[in-house]
């Protein structure tokens, strides 16, 4: 019984991790760059969402639209100002730049909103209901559904729309795409914008569960990263699967090995996956390119 419960709660945590990893994996997919500031963007999403909720207390939906859009805008500004120049440089430089940005963002959040965490109003009831003898909280169920829907929406976007195909072309071969008339600069900005919007959504959804604070960015970013890498960096379904996998592994190892080493074990897992299947676990299961919309190139 407890095994089953641990799995369920693992899936719940996992759905949050999947949501966190989406924006992150998208940037890697299209630009092959790691954006270390993604965690901070998510935290910022939480704060900005709170601001909008306070301005429009009666219409939550509006906040959910405006919040992520603001983060998308901020992401574009960051990309244009700082990261544009580094697109051609070594990946390491962008990593350092985004690390610097994450410091800047986290301090900025602390200066604006103070060092204390803030709680979020619950938009969905917190009272749990029972399902097959396991308590489920509507909030978490909602997140689960949102993650899955976003994944489906993103997949459709990339597979079936013209813009989506342009972005895929961009990720495969930048120069060929340019030759085909795809405006590289504009589209990279678009990718960052979409990633920012996803970060904003993730931030607003995780806030009621985890609280939002200026220091939560590192935690969120790390989980997003591990989820994406385990599932397959650059693959949207991979990240979703990775998120769930991470949640379950964490819970099971904590439940049956030791709660003290929970983080240590996920780190170990990360290292093992990197060693034996660097393209992610999903690459083992999906040899066919149908589901992996981005062909990987080293």
């Amino acid at each position, binding site marked *: 019984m407890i095994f089953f419960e641990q799995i369920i709660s693992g899936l719940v945590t996992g759905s949050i991790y999947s949501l966190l990893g989406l924006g992150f994996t998208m940037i890697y997919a299209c630009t092959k760059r*790691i954006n270390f500031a993604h965690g901070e963007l998510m935290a910022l999403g939480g704060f900005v969402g709170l601001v909008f909720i306070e301005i429009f207390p009666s219409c939550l939906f509006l906040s959910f639209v405006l919040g992520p859009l603001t983060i998308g805008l901020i992401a574009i500004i960051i990309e244009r100002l*700082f*990261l544009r*120049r*580094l697109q051609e*440089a070594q*990946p*390491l*430089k962008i*990593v*350092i*730049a985004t*690390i*610097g*940005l*994450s*410091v*800047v963002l986290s*301090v*900025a959040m*602390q*200066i604006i909103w103070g060092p204390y965490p803030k709680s979020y109003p619950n938009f969905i009831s917190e009272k749990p209901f029972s399902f097959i003898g396991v308590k489920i909280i509507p909030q978490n169920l909602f997140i689960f559904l949102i993650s899955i829907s976003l994944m489906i929406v993103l997949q459709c976007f990339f597979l079936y729309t013209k813009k989506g195909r342009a972005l895929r072309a961009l990720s495969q071969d930048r120069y060929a795409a340019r030759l085909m008339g795809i405006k590289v600069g504009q589209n990279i900005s678009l990718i960052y914008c979409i990633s920012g919007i996803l970060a904003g959504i993730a931030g607003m959804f995780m806030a009621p569960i985890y609280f939002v604070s200026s220091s939560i960015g590192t935690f969120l970013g790390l989980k997003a*990263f591990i989820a994406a*890498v385990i599932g397959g*960096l650059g693959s949207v379904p991979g990240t979703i699967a990775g998120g769930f996998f991470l949640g379950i592994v964490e819970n099971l190892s904590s439940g049956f090995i030791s709660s*003290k*080493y929970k*983080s*240590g074990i996920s*780190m*170990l897992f*990360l*290292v093992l996956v*990197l*060693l034996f299947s*660097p393209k992610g676990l999903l690459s083992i299961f999906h040899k066919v390119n149908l589901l992996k919309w981005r062909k990987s190139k*080293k």
Partner: protein
Amino acid sequence: MKSIKHIFPLFILILTLSIIGFIPNIYYLHLFNLILIYSIFSLGLNILTGYTGITSFGHAGFFALGAYATAILSTRYGVPPILSIFFASFFTGIAGFIIGLPVIRISGIYLAMVTLGSAEFIRLLALNWDSLTGGPVGISNIPALSIFGCYFKSERSLFFFLYVILIISTFIFVRITNSRFGKSLIAIKDDEQAAESIGIPCAKNKLISFFISGLYSGLSGALYAHFDRFIHPASFTFSLSVLVLCMVILGGMGTVFGSILGAILIVILLEYLQPLGDYRLFVYGMLLVIMISYFPQGLIGILKEVSGHFRKNKFIKYYLRKNENI
């Protein structure tokens, strides 16, 4: 092998810098000692990242290994500090070699993540393995450095000792990087396949590079342990790995003095920003981003440009032409 031409400016440099050892303010001496230790650390990372092109996000792990190894040896087993530092560096070198073994299978960003994972793992190990590392209490009362009974307890004496160690390490580093082996590392960084095709044993050299990197990083960690004389897992986090990475990149990757300049730059920067209080990390982050975006070659790059402009100046050119044959 080097002619007097090249040695002379270096000699002036070394002599002038030793003046720092005489400033009266102990706090600033403390900062300079920290710079010396970080310089060695930076050299360690540089050979891996700057010369061989292997990004590492986990060098705090090596630093921690060196620190803990010497701390345990000298506090629990009474090994004299100089010996324990020696063993600690060697031990970390071997650890570097082991962590580098996956290098044969993977590369790029994935390898970098393995280093990150291993550093975190080391930190968690230090935090939870109470019986060996003292766990969350840390290790305190680490003995001060001493040679033949002479203790280096004051900041000032420590400065001169560390200064000499840095000079020796840098000298060895220069010899390594100027050797055939060192040049092969640069070749590997530029184009591994081409390097392999002309007969460079890439995997073997990368592993040796990991070993040397571990050696230097472990040395700096060990020196640090006897410097602060108290170590705790909280000092060896990801931010330390980022700090040393910044030193290497902002100073100038793939150059010897870049590492040292980077260490100076970062420590002094953080210090000058102190009066800003809460805003200091903000400015630090901003500076980082701007430096990386607009000056990717680092401080050495800036200096080279400046000296290049300087030399292009017509007065200097005239002066130099007059004294061409010196």
